[in-house]
């Protein structure tokens, strides 16, 4: 049946990609755990991911917290439930918005940059040069990026949580007329360790996925500038989709009853 052929072809291509990606992830992860390690490269990647992403993640977090407080107020005012705003802000930010938005921002900034850098190295034979210089590209290029993503995303999210809650606080106090000490007390009382921990676990997984996608698409890019451009786009899109889908799975894992 002619109509089944393209469906079958697409399905097989999907299975092939999943298999290739799984193999890439397995090899990369194994190289994260085996020497030699490259501490200088790891430090450079940690600075690149953690420090240089701070402004964009901070801005995202503060405005998200501010909007969240404002929207919650306009909604909750209908039921005279304005006092729940600190609770909504802290739960939303720590459980969901902090990790997801930080992950998406890092996917756009870092995932794209990784795909472009490694992709350029691929098409200009720099990765082949690494091989001929008896240096494993997985160990030298991929492992430091994965480790940096896994460790730095939770720190970024922790910072985003604080900034996001602060954003909600600013709007609640200066625009909505909340009592500052009461707002902080409510926030503190309502916050549970599992909210923050689940967000940090998500962040670590997102960090792995974003850097994995950046490295995978860059490493497998072909065909010059156009190939590098496609790798960059694919890294951001696949990284973002994986963040959103894995977010559901982790939420299910932590909070499903």
């Amino acid at each position, binding site marked *: 049946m002619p109509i089944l052929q393209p469906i079958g072809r697409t399905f097989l291509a999907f299975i092939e990609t999943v298999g290739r990606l799984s193999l890439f992830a397995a090899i990369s992860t194994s190289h994260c755990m085996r020497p030699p390690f490259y501490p200088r490269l790891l430090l450079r990647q940690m600075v690149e991911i953690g420090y240089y992403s701070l402004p964009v993640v901070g801005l995202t977090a503060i405005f998200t917290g501010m909007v969240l407080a404002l929207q919650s107020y306009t909604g909750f005012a209908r039921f005279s439930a304005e006092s729940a705003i600190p609770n909504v802000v802290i739960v939303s930010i720590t459980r969901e918005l902090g990790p997801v938005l930080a992950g998406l921002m890092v996917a756009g900034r870092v995932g794209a940059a990784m795909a472009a850098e490694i992709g350029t190295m691929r098409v200009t*034979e720099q990765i082949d040069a690494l091989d001929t210089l008896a240096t494993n590209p997985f160990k030298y290029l991929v492992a430091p990026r994965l480790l940096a993503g896994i460790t730095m995303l939770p720190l970024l999210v922790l910072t985003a949580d604080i900034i996001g809650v602060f954003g909600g606080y600013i709007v609640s106090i200066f625009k909505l007329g909340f009592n500052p000490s009461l707002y902080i007390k409510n926030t503190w009382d309502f916050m549970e360790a599992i909210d923050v921990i689940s967000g940090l676990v998500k962040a670590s997984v997102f960090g792995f996925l974003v850097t994995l996608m950046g490295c995978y698409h860059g490493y497998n890019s072909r065909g010059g500038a156009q190939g590098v451009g496609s790798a960059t786009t694919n890294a951001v899109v696949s990284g973002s989709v994986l963040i959103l889908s894995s977010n559901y799975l982790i939420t299910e894992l932590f909070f499903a009853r």
Partner: protein
Amino acid sequence: MSPGFPAVAGDTRGAAEPTGHGARQTPRIRIRDLYKAFGVKEVLRGLDLDVGAGESVVVIGGSGSGKSVTLKCVLGLLQPEAGSIQVDGEEVVGLGGDSLEQVRRKFGMLFQNAALFDSLPVWENVAFGLTQGQGMGRREARAIAIDRLAAVGLEPEVGDMWPAELSGGMRKRVGLARAIATSPEIMFFDEPTTGLDPIMGDVIDALIVKCVHELGATALSITHDMASARRIADRIAMLYEGKIIWAGPTAEIDHSNNPYVDQFIHGRAEGPITMMANA
């Protein structure tokens, strides 16, 4: 070993010094019946080639004839579908992991566009095989890198420049310095003069001959530049349609009596070699 290039850690050259024309000895590189295809396109179709110890062999051939693929198969960057590649008697087809890395420690490679690492200054590029491959300290590696830069005619100040600041000729020189930094036993040159003006091409060729001679290394080069091939080769092999169709000493290439070779070395459009529009 030449006094010009002091040995560095990992140099495993033994008592058998290259003779300069070692074709009669056990070949350092022995390729037999090599097949490589990309999808339906067969690039190599039963390629045989020997490179003797201390010998400089140049593989010539048109664009898309499989020269680079041959080199990448020997380096283990591509896996052939069938055939055998032996380096010092050790089979490298199917080799992976640490075993392949050990074989690669014998190699030095000059890439077509030098393939310098953009994120590292020149001296770190040159010293890369020493610092990352052999674990040498940065101070010692830098001294060797500056020495190798001098060997290819570059000032020590170039060591602190970035690859993006270099001209094409300088990039080739730095690539050559990186290739010789670990005093490799076997050197590969991928289109060493492509993209250079004739004078710079001659300079690079002279440097290649000098470096290979001083290292006592075995060299395998690929090019379609006949002037370059004549300068650097002890022996030339012509690749056509995935096979070596002629091989012999450089001096004999003008009397090969092979119409394919004659057409190629004289650069004639007419002859048995037909260029496809999409080749």
